[in-house]
């Protein structure tokens, strides 16, 4: 655990505390289908963020009265493990977690074809095992993979990334250290095919030109993450296939 607060977040070359350029993402690792019992699951590491997402459903609505007659209900819980931050976090849901559960759900609702499963629920759990700034965005990136892994029909994968401002400069994907001293934070979730921004929050101060530039930076990063998501998803299903193809001649299957 480190708790240092460097004086300068940008060096003379314009590089950040962890050596990144302003428009550079932290290293991202994505894994799909890593939990056994869940219908779909995914894991993301982004910087020091370690986040698990799992999907159960579509399943019978419990309690019955929460069901909707013409579409599936999506339920979402964003939760931080007590050991995920420097000082132990009470496991009881905080107001922040309740709000994030809502905005994460709303960032994913536009992509899920919920009208195919009326009167059911799709439950989505985002568990932050270690938090390092930008956990809601990383959580969305993982959660949309978990939805796809559960075989739930959806328009497309949703990727999310935040842009912040450090020492007056827009910077992509702030880490915890940068976030704590940052001057603004703009988390964005994006669906590229539909050109739809499905999560948008902001705190700090941004001028209109800064907002436009920041939004573009975040969207470009979402597109990069989107490609990575697609690869991670396909990887899971292609691995066994390659092994098989070495052994067997092609055959038409039903």
């Amino acid at each position: 655990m480190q708790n240092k607060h460097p004086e300068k977040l940008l060096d003379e070359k314009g590089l950040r505390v962890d050596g990144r350029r302003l428009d550079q993402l932290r290293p991202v690792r994505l894994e799909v289908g890593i939990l056994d019992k869940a219908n779909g699951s995914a894991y993301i590491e982004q910087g020091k963020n370690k986040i698990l997402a799992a999907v159960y459903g579509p399943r019978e609505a419990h309690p019955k009265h929460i069901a909707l007659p013409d579409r599936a209900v999506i339920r979402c819980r964003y939760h931080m493990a007590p050991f995920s931050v420097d000082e132990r976090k009470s496991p009881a849901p905080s107001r922040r977690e309740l709000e994030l559960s809502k905005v994460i759900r709303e960032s994913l609702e536009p992509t899920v074809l919920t009208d195919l499963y009326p009167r059911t629920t799709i439950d989505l759990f985002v568990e932050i095992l270690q938090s390092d700034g930008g956990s809601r965005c990383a959580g969305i990136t993982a959660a949309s993979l978990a939805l796809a892994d559960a075989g739930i029909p959806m328009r497309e994968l949703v990727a999310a990334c935040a842009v912040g401002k450090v020492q007056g400069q827009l910077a992509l994907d702030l880490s915890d250290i940068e976030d704590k001293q940052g001057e603004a934070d703009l988390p964005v979730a994006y669906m590229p095919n539909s050109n739809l921004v499905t999560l948008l929050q902001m705190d700090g101060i941004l001028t209109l030109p800064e907002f436009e530039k920041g939004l573009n930076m975040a969207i470009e990063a979402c597109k990069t993450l989107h490609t990575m998501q697609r690869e991670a998803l396909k990887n899971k299903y292609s691995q066994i296939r390659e092994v098989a193809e070495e052994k067997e001649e092609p055959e038409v299957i039903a």
Partner: protein
Amino acid sequence: MSATPQLPPVAKLEQKTVVDLIAKGNRIDERGHDSYRPITIQTGVIEKANGSAQIFLGKTRVLVGIKVETGEPFADTPEEGVLTVNAELVPLAHPSFEPGPPDENAIELARVIDRGIRESKAIDLKALCLQKGKKVQVVYVDVYVLDHDGNLIDAGSMAALAALANAKIGKYEIKGDEVIVKPDRRPLPINNYPVSVTFGKVDRNIIVDPSLEEEQVMNARLTVTIEKSGSICAMQKGGLSGFTTEELRKIVHIAVERAAENRAKILAAAKI
């Protein structure tokens, strides 16, 4: 857990009327897409509060009371006062509001209002420190929704700003471990005036200040809070759909214009 909300009990035909009018460039209450409902703000309506304001935004009615008390600072900001925003969706305001702890809508409402005030540094929290690390002033902003006819975020944040601008605090003296409050009517130190502007997306149309009828047909919501110099200091998207990048570009510019107009109304009401 956050769950997809229940459908509003509005017949399809009624919804269609609202949607069709918007598609034609009109609105059910005959406003333009970019205009607000009439705004009336009264300040100083609760004598026992340090500051208070009541807003009527069309038929939406929100009361905000400010209470200033002494308390302890947060460990990471020992030299700053504390800001706490809480919102109550009082059951008398709408049949769907039920007694009980704040639900996700009340929490979101409070946190979006809080974000605007906090991020624009509207209150000079440093000036509220009495004894470093031990005693500071705590500003409680309680947002009370009394009649819900849509756009609670803007109504709540405008009323909160008017109430803060109207708030008066006593004179604090420290003697040993005791804090003595002497009656005085000094204004709360206010540095900035953040104003939120909320948009609704109905099909492909963007409207400002959605009423409840419009909220029930809109696909997505976006709040943009603008501080006094015209920069953005908070944003929050809600609803089951999203916004295109072109829409967002248009929205932020409208937000700056509407915020300036509404800020003038708030300051006039608070007599600043």
